[in-house]
């Protein structure tokens, strides 16, 4: 990416996000990318006066990520989307659809996970 990508951990994420909000950044979106069978990348994109800023959070699939929707309410939709598509859980979602934003209740598998791991929550049903 043209812009610098800052790596964050689940512990430092909260502070960084609060800082962004204080500096007047607009939340653009989050992207989730599957890296290998265990880990995913979650990218946070922010924008201020057309300048982009990115954060990268690398977490294991079976671990819950901290939700940023209490800070940026706009994130609730995309976090629900990631929950649907990658099976990653978010702690403290403002509105939690519980994996039914796009998919029906009976769908157990996370469709975007090409490499499924047996211990991922919800993937046993496949």
């Amino acid at each position, binding site marked *: 990416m043209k812009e610098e990508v800052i790596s964050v951990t689940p512990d430092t994420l909260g502070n960084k996000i609060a800082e962004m909000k204080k500096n007047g950044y607009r939340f653009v979106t989050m992207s989730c990318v599957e890296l290998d069978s265990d880990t995913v990348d979650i990218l946070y994109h922010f924008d201020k006066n057309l300048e982009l800023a990115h954060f990268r959070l690398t977490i294991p699939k079976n671990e819950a990520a901290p939700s940023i929707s209490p800070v940026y309410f706009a994130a609730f939709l995309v976090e629900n989307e990631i929950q649907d598509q990658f099976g990653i859980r978010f702690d403290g979602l403002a509105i939690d659809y519980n994996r039914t934003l796009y*998919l029906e209740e009976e769908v157990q598998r996370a469709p975007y996970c090409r490499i499924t791991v047996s211990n991922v929550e919800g993937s046993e049903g496949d």
Partner: protein
Amino acid sequence: MDTIKTFIRKSRIKSPWLLHFDCGSCNGCDIEVLACLTPVYDIERFGIINVGNPKHADLLLVTGTVNHRNKKVLGNLAEQMPEPKIVVALGSCGLSGGVFREAYNVIGGVDKIIPVDVYVPGCPPKPEAIIDGVVTGLAKFAQKKGDTS
């Protein structure tokens, strides 16, 4: 009583009411259906009226792919329509799933859920083709009407 019945039967063929449902289309076919209702194509000159209530409708125009969530809505709408009814599937997505048919949340065309009477190909079909499709549907409607009464 018989004269009234014949009258209603003839009117339904002459002036069918249309219900449009967007299943999962990209809006391309949708706006073409709407364009049909607006002055330049003006499908209302054939006595066709767009209604919002399935119980008033004779013709169901369906656009777009069927997915796991909207198949229930589609089935529900088709069930509420009075018999006989005509289902017209529009666009590549409505016919078979088109370019999206291999996507994970797509079941396929409309005919996987409800029986389809007329297929209108195109991505999206031109308003002229939609008019053609409706007219083809009407011929079939008249035939069905003849069978039931």
